[in-house]
């Protein structure tokens, strides 16, 4: 069964994932039996009653009530089983236990952000303890996104202007991928994250280390920290560092260059322009690129912005 | 139509029908089916209205006061009157009173035009106050953050209804011209009949719109 499971389903890494899997196999196998049965009968009829002469006259068989009732009621019972079973599993996976550990999730083009109780913040990495229910309270800053962890068999849309919830208990330490499954534009397919499952104590110490968030680790130079931030905040989803043109202009050689803006004017890329572009991206958009970037006002602090600018400078 | 003729010799008889009765029945049924479509078309907007009224009941009470119940009421009477005259036009056709068809159609057109004129003044008055739909909304008389949504619905629903009135006027003018050429009589009045059906629907939709927007208390 395990081997079969791996063929069609990702590894079941949450405590409830196997419930979904059992139902999955029940429906698929009974469907397979029905398919083989019906196609078998069809092929048998086609062979047995193949036309032998052109003026054959066939018997008049208009209907058969017993048969009609049988093949209405049996499938009805089958689908009602699948319905009840599916609903029961769904409800169990939907209602989070009261003692669940809460983490806030924000979706925005094209990054997942996580905020923990003590103010720790991560981007693209969701750190959770193993063996403890985790409840995600999710909202979006722009369009609809959807938070999907295949390994946990859970998914929930993340909608602007309201909160949605999702919960799971990770079985053991490890990593699982998070996909955005509601189409959200250019880099929709790059809007992924990792769930990183720690042992309980390891998680607590990780949390303590990251309390407050947003200050420079002591062992890093500003530009190195900037490089880290650029990945973490998914800047590099749209801005390449090797000269390729993506959704936004490349960062390679951009510092102190002249750029033409959409209104035809030109601007020299300096610290002020970069800072403005991070906080008010729509103010001065470079010619040839769509005006799709979100503001990072209130998300990146001054130290972080400075670090990113330092990093961009090193790319010349 | 008990006394409806089954003549196949009318100049407006179309060859693919078996007889004029089949042609008349088909046209009438087609219009009924089309009206079902119209109801669903407006139904989408009514559904949006219901959802927002459930969410923001106080908004609807507050915003409704900006609408002029008197003129809304006058318009209701005008439209009901026009429904009556269009029914009289059909009756005149059945009775073969060719002149009365044209007269009744003429009155209907006039009433529909009055309706649109009153509507025009209602809208322009609101524009003066800065009550525009959606993001252009610039009125601060209503203390509610979602006031623009109410007026978006108001403009959409009365606007869509207004478009139907204008289309109705166009159809009536066409009927009037044809009736003056003497095309309609008790043998053939299908276009009058089915346009009348359409006009009644336009009337009924207004009868729903009026209390839903003007008479919220």
């Amino acid at each position, binding site marked *: 069964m395990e081997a079969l499971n791996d063929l069609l389903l990702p590894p079941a890494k949450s405590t409830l994932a196997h419930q979904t899997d059992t139902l999955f196999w029940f429906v698929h196998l009974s469907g397979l039996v029905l398919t083989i049965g019906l196609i078998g009968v069809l092929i048998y009829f086609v062979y047995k009653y193949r036309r032998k002469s052109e003026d054959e006259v066939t018997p008049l068989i208009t209907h058969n009530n017993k048969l009609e009732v049988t093949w209405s009621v049996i499938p009805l019972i089958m689908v009602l089983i699948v319905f009840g079973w599916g609903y029961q599993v769904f409800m169990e996976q939907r209602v989070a236990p009261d003692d669940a550990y809460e983490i806030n999730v924000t979706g925005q083009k094209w990054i997942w952000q996580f905020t923990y109780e003590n103010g720790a913040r991560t981007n693209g990495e969701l750190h959770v303890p193993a063996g403890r229910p985790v409840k995600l309270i999710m909202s979006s800053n722009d369009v609809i996104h959807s938070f999907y962890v295949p390994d946990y068999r859970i998914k929930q849309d993340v909608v602007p202007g309201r909160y949605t919830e999702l919960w799971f208990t990770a079985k053991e330490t490890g990593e699982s991928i998070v996909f955005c499954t509601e189409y959200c534009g250019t880099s929709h397919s790059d809007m992924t994250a990792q769930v990183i499952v720690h042992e309980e104590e390891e998680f607590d110490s990780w949390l303590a280390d990251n309390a407050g968030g947003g200050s420079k680790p002591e062992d890093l130079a500003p530009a190195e920290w900037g490089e880290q931030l650029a990945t973490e905040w998914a800047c590099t989803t749209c801005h390449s560092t090797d000269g390729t043109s993506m959704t936004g202009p490349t960062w390679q050689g951009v510092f102190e260059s002249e750029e033409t803006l959409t209104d035809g004017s030109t601007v020299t890329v300096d610290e002020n322009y970069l800072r403005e572009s991070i906080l008010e991206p729509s103010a001065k958009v470079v010619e040839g690129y769509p005006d799709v970037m979100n503001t990072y006002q209130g998300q990146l602090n001054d130290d972080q912005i400075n670090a990113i600018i330092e990093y961009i400078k090193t790319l010349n | 139509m008990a006394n409806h003729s089954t003549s196949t010799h009318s100049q407006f008889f179309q060859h693919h029908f078996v007889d004029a009765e089949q042609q008349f029945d088909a046209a009438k049924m087609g219009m009924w089916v089309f009206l079902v479509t119209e109801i669903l078309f407006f*139904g989408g907007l009514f559904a949006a209205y219901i959802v927002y009224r459930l969410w923001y009941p106080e908004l609807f009470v507050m915003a409704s006061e900006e609408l002029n119940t008197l003129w809304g009421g006058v318009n209701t009477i005008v439209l009901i009157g026009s429904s009556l005259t269009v029914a009289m036009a059909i009756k005149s056709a059945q009775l073969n009173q060719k002149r009365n068809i044209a007269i009744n159609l003429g009155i209907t057109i006039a009433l529909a035009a009055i309706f649109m004129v009153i509507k025009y003044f209602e809208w322009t008055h609101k524009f003066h106050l800065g009550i525009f739909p959606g993001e252009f909304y610039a009125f601060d008389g209503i203390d509610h953050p979602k006031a623009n949504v109410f007026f978006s619905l108001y403009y959409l629903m009365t606007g869509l209804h207004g478009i139907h009135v204008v289309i109705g006027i166009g159809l009536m003018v066409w009927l009037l011209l044809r009736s003056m050429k003497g095309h309609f009589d008790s043998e053939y009045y299908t276009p009058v009949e089915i346009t009348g059906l359409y006009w009644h629907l336009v009337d009924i939709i207004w009868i729903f719109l009026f209390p839903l927007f003007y008479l919220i208390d």
Partner: protein
Amino acid sequence: MATAETNLKKIQVQRYEPESDPDQHYLNEETGLWAWLTTVDHKKIGLMYLASVTFFFFVGGIMALLVRTELWTPAKTFIEANTYNQIFTLHGAIMVFLFLVPSVPAALGNFFLPLQLGAKDVAFPRLNLLSYYLYVAGALIALISIVNGGIDTGWTFYTPYSSTTGGAVTIMTFGVFVIGFSSILTGVNFITTIHKMRAPGLSWDKLSLFCWSLYATSIIQILATPVLAITLALVGMERILGIGIFDPALGGDPVLYQHFFWFYSHPAVYIMIVPGFGIVSEVISTFSKKHIFGYWAIALSSLAIAFIGFLVWGHHMFVSGQASLASMVFSFLTFLVGIPTGIKMFNWTATLYKGSIRVASPLLYIFGFFFLFLVGGLTGIVLGSIALNVHLHDTYYVVAHFHFVMVGGMVMAFLAGVHYWWPKMTGRMYNETMAKISCVTIFIGFNVTFLPQFVMGSLGMPRRYFNYIEQFQIYHQISTVGSYILGIGFMMIFYYLIRSLYKGKKAEPNPWGSRALEWQVNSLPPLHNFHHTPVIINGPYDYHKPMDEFQLGLAENGHGHAPQHEAEVSSQEPTKAE
């Protein structure tokens, strides 16, 4: 024939036998480009639709191949992410609105509905022409949006993405709005035609199942399409005026949009597939020379599907944040809609029992339909189960599921219909061997394309992804290879059908020995279908009588249209028409 009943009008009828290779037919009367463009003949309008939907099928198909080719490798293979997003949007929008919705009802339905009813035309021929031009106008407007910035919203136009993204979304939604009216007017026309234009003797229980399916389809068209029209109008208004009904930034609710959209778009799925069911019934009965099993079960299950289909839209929204109770109800109703569909499958299989089966190419396409639609339907049951839907929603599993239903089901049924009625429409026979080869090619290509998508979907591959993680690459590559096989299959059909117009053998009036009414007129029917109003004595599936006892009657006197007329055969001598 009962003659004792007093309220029935008796009509004297003669036997009728069509001539093969007639001098006068609908194609050589009223010729010339202008006559075609202004024709009100339902057959010519049907052919114009057929040409148009074929054109858009190829456009949409090329988009599909571009999408599949791009997915050969993760990230960029040969096009940019934004272009990719526009292409899959256009693939979906073109296939749904310009091909699937009009294909069977507007093309084949237009041609064969009046013929199967024994009518000279649809009830409103000019309205029919207007529908066609609205379709063309809507299609042109949609095409304008491509050169005007394109659209990248997906065919579902979800807000607030669609109300905030760049490009020509407003133009596209207006185009779909116009096409919607074309669809509505066709529905109005068909319902009236079926009610009012049936030939004498054609009572509801002698109505062909193709007509029943068109009837059910038309009901959905007139009830659901206006809601789509108003919804898309609202999206347009959202972009122009910022009315804020769907945009949370302006106080609206984006999930409300989804309710509106799926209220149309789920029933629209049945607009696409139910007419296909009608074709299946016709073809299975004809090629097994057997009275259809469970006539009423099949006819009424179409109506049941049409009705329940309106109550299941929320199954597209199990993870959207709608209330659990709503999800439960929608899931329950979704399973109920599976039952009438299952009933049809069983009845069709039972029809083959003790038949006289000839596996000609239309029937081969129906067998293709049978398997693919069964897989599509059963995976629909999987997706209807809420717990499984949570895992599979918006993954390639869903993509594979609806392609099995829409392409495997609907397109196979459409192709079966085209092959079945090709001799009647064009007066020519196509190459049977090539037809079978291409049917098998399409069947193989289709499975190679979409079976791997089930696997990667349940493994977690989300849909509408430009980039993907490497473990999925092998499935994507198999799928891409399959899509090329599929493309070759469609090109083969195009080739031999066009070739048959020039080189094909002339078709007999009734090459398949069918009992359905449209086969009792000449191949290449006369301009007005029937020189005299036909009188229906036998049902369309009366294969239990030998052909020489099965004849079409022609009214000698009287020509009432009401179906309660009872026909009586007065003459035993077959007579040629005219």
